[in-house]
């Protein structure tokens, strides 16, 4: 695994901590944001190598974040993995729209 800086975005504290606990031992630097707006703030400060994004969040949800990211020429290159419980076709379609990686 590469040593990178990963941003975990999830409003569920437990899930976020779980993600950190799993990723940290490999030496990856992790950061947590609990909603979309905070996530964008953090990304502005420093560009992560990967974003793990939950879809359902208050304030600004995962899709909102995606919109913002893809709008920026530099930030659009950040790979994003969406973590979500939504399985409907509609959601998948939406995600594909944003060229989400996984």
């Amino acid at each position, binding site marked *: 695994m590469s040593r990178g800086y990963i941003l975990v975005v999830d409003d569920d504290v437990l899930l976020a901590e779980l993600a950190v606990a799993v990723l*940290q031992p490999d*030496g990856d630097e992790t950061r947590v944001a609990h909603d979309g707006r905070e996530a964008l703030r953090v990304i502005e400060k420093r560009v992560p190598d990967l974003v793990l994004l939950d879809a359902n969040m208050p304030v600004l949800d995962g899709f909102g974040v995606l919109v913002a990211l893809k709008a920026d020429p530099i930030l659009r290159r950040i790979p994003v993995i969406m973590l979500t419980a939504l*399985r409907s076709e509609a959601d998948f379609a939406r995600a594909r729209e944003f060229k989400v990686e996984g």
Partner: protein
Amino acid sequence: MRNFNQDASRPQTPWFGAMEISAGTVASALCLAGLSAGVVFLSHQFTQDAGRVASIWPLNALLLAIILRWPGASPAVVIAIGAASNVAVDLAMGDTVFNGLALTLANVVEMAVCIYFLRPKGATFDISRPHSLLRFVFIAGGIAPAASAAIAACVLTTKATFLETLGVWFAADALGMLIFTPALLVVGSTRAEGVFPRRSFTEWGLGVAILVTVLFAVFGQRSYPLLFLVYPVVILATFRGGLTATAMSILVTACVAIWASVVGYGPTQLIPGSETDRVLVLQGFLAVMTLTSLPVAMALAERARASASLRAAREEAERAGVEARASENRYRALADYSTDIVVRLGKGGIISYASPACGILGITPEQAVGRSTIDFAAPEDRAFAIKTLEDLFSGAEPDRSIRREFRVPRTDGAVLWLEGNPSIIRDADGAPVEVVTTYRDVTTRRQLEDELRDANLAAHTATEAPRASEHRFRAIAETSRDMVARMDMNGVIRFVSPSCETVMGFSQEEMLGTTTMAHTHREDLEDVEGFFAKLISDGPNAPPRPYTFRARRKDGRIIWLEGIPKILFDEAGRPSEIQDSARDVTARKELEQALAEARVAAEAAAEAKAEFLANMSHELRTPLNSIIGFTQLLAGSAALPQAERRHVDLVAMSSRSLLTVVNDILDFSTLDEGRIRLEQRPFSVGETICRCVDSLTLQADAKNLRLETRLDETLAPYLVGDDTRLTQILLNLIGNAVKFTDQGSVAISVHTLPSVRDYQAFRITVRDTGIGIPRDRLDQLFVRFSQIDSSINRRFGGSGLGLAITKGLVDLMKGQIGVESLLGEGTTFWVELNLPIARSTEIPRPLGDAPPAVVAPGKKLRVLVVDDVDLNRELAAAFLATSGHLVDLASDGQEATALVQTQHYDIVFMDVQMPRMDGLTATRLIRAIPNRSNLPIVAMTAQALPDQIAACREAGMDDYLPKPITAESLPVMITKWAQARTDAKSDASGQLDVMASLRSRFLLRSRDDLQRMNELVASEEGVVSQELFALVHRFAGTAGTFGYVEAGQAAQVIESAISAGRAPDSQSFEPLLRAVESMVRAA
């Protein structure tokens, strides 16, 4: 019976004995003669048929029995009487004189042989001894009769053959002996009877009756061979009647049998052959019976005797025991009620008995038994106690004139005096076996004695003391230049020495009658009064103490007086008067005051200077730190061209020198004020020296100098001390050596010195072959700011403080430092130290185990650097970036705290002094955050004083780095603190713990969620609120992750339904609720 009087004390000869010729003796002799004659006659009469020889011959047996039984009897006389009778009867019966004499001679010979062998040298003959019986049988029943038979056979050759005569004579004599002598010896003998149980008269009668009956039955007929019937009767007699009965029955049987046989009755009549034969066979039977039953009887008698004596002994012992116990009880009764302590002691003072009175010592008799009295004596009297015991057990009677008094501590601690009064119990040989002592409490007596003595003494001295004191006082007073005065308790001056005129300006008359208070300065009155009050309360034995006060002279001038007063007390302990000797100390006082003021001023100045220095050095070091750091970074950059690199190196070198100077200044000022504290750590002297030498190798090589190190093998491997400071000392000395040497070598050696236990004294010598130091400058060396001359400074640089600091450190270590030098040849510096030897438990791990100084490649850590100065932040970040760590920066405590709350860091470097929120506060706040207590926080501070460091630790910081930071100091800290943590975290078990804690938190949350869902479902019928949806969604997303598949799936079903637009009713929530419930309950 026959009693030949004998005198036991007169010596007896075997043959003649000691006999007194008296009427009794003659009568006895005559009786014997008659008896002998009768026996001889009867013998011949009864057995005359077979020729001359009588087949029964009891005479010799009788005579022998008499002789053996009565040792006093003279054998010669008895034999003579017997012989005479024998001859007489023989002649009367028609024997020729020759025959008569010859045959009698044969008998005499027989007797002689018997006596010779059976009673040698007059010893008594005890037939009851088996040995004796055997001898008797052999001699009297064998050899003796054989001898006499031989003689007789030679003489009597007429009527029968030699052999026949021999045989009959022998048989008759022998058998006679064997039958009659033993029985005669035993019957009635007291020795035999002794302890045989007495049988009743009836039994005796019965026995006799049985005997008579049997004998009659046996010998009253002549048809049946019933001889054997006699035996049982005799055995019966043996067992029931003892020796006497046995002997009696034998004798009776013999007589009856012989008489019966002679008159033609008895079983022997059945024997074919001559009468002689019959008689001889009968005698044979009788002899055998005798020789078998007598020993048995003797054995039984012996046994009875033995058991009787055993019984007697037992009874004796019991009796003795009863007596002894009775006696003991009597004594015990006495002892128990006595108020004195009665004690029985064995050797060594071991107590075998102590009376209850020992309670006055607070112990019980049981506690005393088994211990030695020496244990109870007070230590100071123990030797006396031991000596006393020794004397008592030595055997001599105790000296009654000395007082045996001992101090004996009671169990409550009080000490009693006891006086001991001993009596010695001796054994049969007079040796002391026990001592019985009574101890009396004489404490009060001694007290009274002491008091009397003291009273006498006191009375004696009381009269002496005042007189002597008076004389002394007057002598002093007249001659002293000090003003000597006597005052009463109101301060009224009763006497004053003439010198008062010089001191106070008043004359004696003017002072008398005035009070001291009148002369004392107003401001000092209170102090003086207080001083005297204290002096009075201290009592008569208080040592004299001085006091000072101001007094006003006659001319109004104020002077300082110092007095040493003494208060005199009367017999009742009341103060009676004051004696004082006062001196003018004005000049001294003024001097003291001036000095005190000067000191305060000096101290203030020193304080100010120190503070200034400390501040200055901080101000100097911070920018210096940046210079050094960045130049280091620059130097590390590969892109630098040659010339520029050279410039950078020079800058780096200069800044390092400057830093050294600044450090020296700071060190020196802290040393000066004694603010340096030495650490006490186990370290190796050898390692320290090697490290120093290593760090100077580069410089030495550059100048082509040899660096030699020699360590004494006897040096203890680990000592306790401050190796950092020792390194400083060594770097200074070795560095100087290298600096001031152009060619040759620098030799560093360590020698051990004679040391005290647990300490190692040693000397480190640094010898160089350098330029040397002029002799007149040697003593200036260790003084600060001096260098040999200013030219040195220009050539070699340096602050001039190095050696002064070194000396200061050596002094702090309580060591010695010195120097020897020859100008142009070289210098030797030596340092002697004495350090404790480290105990093995304190020795640090060998360096091999130390964590690597470099971060293992690939481990990138998250570091937070907090410092208000941009420069420092940047520098730190740059240093860390080279190792590849991920660094965050914060500019004050507040920012830092916020960051730490949301982010995870492996280590935080926290500057202490910052605006808005300083490092200590921030640390405290961080520590308050729930799971940040493990986060390593390292302080960065310019002032590494002990109090500062303590404060950092107290706030919760784990370590500290002194500023300025170097490129190496950060990674070292990281390795020390963060490396271990991340290693631990990467354990699989670590991960499992994290998972477990997350799961338990999930379950907790689920419990609350379940409750909320139940509420919502119950209250909102048909409508799904946002909240409910959110809860469901949450479950859908997380339950599966934590392993609760069922709940997750149930949630997903509902969620899909909701998002598809189908509003579920409360029923459809059931599966989810149930699943969550079981999930929560199973937890």
